[in-house]
């Protein structure tokens, strides 16, 4: 079920990317798309009735049902990369504003 929600979030992000003409809104849409993907990745590791994949004095048997820890590690990397891309995107947005005094793509005649 959560995978449908993640895909819906990705679709919202994609819709935002395709319809918005404001560069800030495009960056936000890109983030929504990334968050949707991150939730999708986390959902891949979900195991029904599974517990956190940490061996403790209470949970110290490999026979216990753990959730898959790998997607959680992957999503951390994906979040870091996403933050880096967003920061760079916003820096470029700043230079667009400095050069053209607008954030609307339609008002910029460059490409």
């Amino acid at each position, binding site marked *: 079920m959560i995978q449908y929600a993640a895909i819906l979030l990705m679709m919202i992000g994609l819709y935002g990317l395709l319809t918005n003409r404001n*560069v800030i809104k495009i960056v936000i849409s890109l983030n929504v798309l990334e968050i949707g993907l991150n939730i*999708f990745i986390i959902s891949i590791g979900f195991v029904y009735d599974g517990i956190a994949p940490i061996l403790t004095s209470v949970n110290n048997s490999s026979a216990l049902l753990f959730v898959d820890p*790998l997607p959680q590690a*992957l999503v951390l990397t994906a979040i870091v990369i996403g933050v*880096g891309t967003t920061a760079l*995107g916003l820096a*470029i947005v700043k230079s667009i504003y400095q*050069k053209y005094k607008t954030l609307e793509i339609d008002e910029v005649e*460059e*490409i």
Partner: protein
Amino acid sequence: MMSAILLIAIPLLAAFLSILSKKIAPVLLLLVGAANIILLWFVPSGIVIIGDFEMPFGISLFLDSYARIALYLVNGLFFIVTILNVVEYKKLSSILLVALAALNGLLLTGDLFNLFVFLEVAGIAAYLISTTNKKPLATFNYLVIGTVGSILYLFGLMILYGMFGTLNMMDMIHEIQTASIAYSSLILPFFLMFMGLGIEAKLLPFNAWVKGILKHSNTLSGPMIASVYAAAISLMFGRLINNLFMFEGKLLLVVTVLLALGVVLGEAMAFSSKKAREILLFSSISQACITVLLFVNGIIIWAVYVVIANALSKLVLYLIINRATKETKSDDVNDLQGLFAKNIFVGIAFTVAALSVMGLPLFAGFVIKFNYLTQLAVAGQMAIVALILVASLVEGIYFVKLLIKLWYSGEKEINVKFDLPYKAVFAVVTLMIILFGLYSAPLDSLDNGIDTMQDEIGVIYNG
């Protein structure tokens, strides 16, 4: 003990060190660029296990003849482009070092998630390199489209992970080949990954970023993105097509039609353009589609040669046009008329590179085109052969038109000065194009067996 990991680790370490001192940054860049090429000579082939985590649990690298050729090409071109631009763009030294590490990682990694990370790191470096064009909106478009491409790739990969429970490339290929899963359930993840990588590889219709970036490119961003990045990503894409994506049935048809359209539309757009850089960029798009088409048809070695020949030719073409554009402030073909009237040597280099891309006899491009067309014909792909021949004809017309304009002087006199290092690069590339055009025996010494990933999988899993 030399290890392939040094090809990634040394540029990354140098990138960190270069931040500490702006003065040593350009020196570090050149030193590391040269050291990587020398190091490649001593690095042994095979699988490199990192951190003692055995496959498939840890990240591994894989170096075979295919990866070695790709690394020599990318590191060599990277070194040439940095030498020519290091004085003017020394502020970008740290970024270029990160780019080198990421491109080497793309070609070496044996882990599909690690590939995504390198793709993003290489992408971020490319966005920063493209800021030198001083067209922030084009850079922004590149960033957005590139990020969407990476997201699509990762989405497809995660679906595959959900199905097979592995991220190691060899393990994934083995699982796909041995598991009894219907091919229809692989179509979605494969196509998502293909689209994602297609964006980076400039394939139509996923390449909306290319025009904005290459149309305004300079002597750094043009050759770096159209030649170095294009070569690295095409060869990485080829590796995945050869081994992971098993295109068949309807998916093969869709991919072939998309690529064929890319070839035709790329040439048509180049034909209709009046701007020199646009002509080159649309020609690059068409050539990228031809390369992937060859990989899809299993003609690996000639696809690799196409990538090499294109990377060398485009290096010369972009360097000349971007250098001239910098002086004349326009890349309109009419404004560049007579560029070679006083630059005969540069004109010869440009002409040789252009004729090689067209596939005319006496040049390396002809030998390569003749061989891959023959192999396509043997494979019964006559429609693709006809399409490439028509595309070559169109390519011939617009390149000849461009050459005539550039050779014959018009009303205005153009005086563009090319420094000695530029001329040295042009001379070497021109000689190589002519040499391999006249003496093609070395090209025949290699075959599709350069990509040994399937053999390695056989050894690991079947003994």
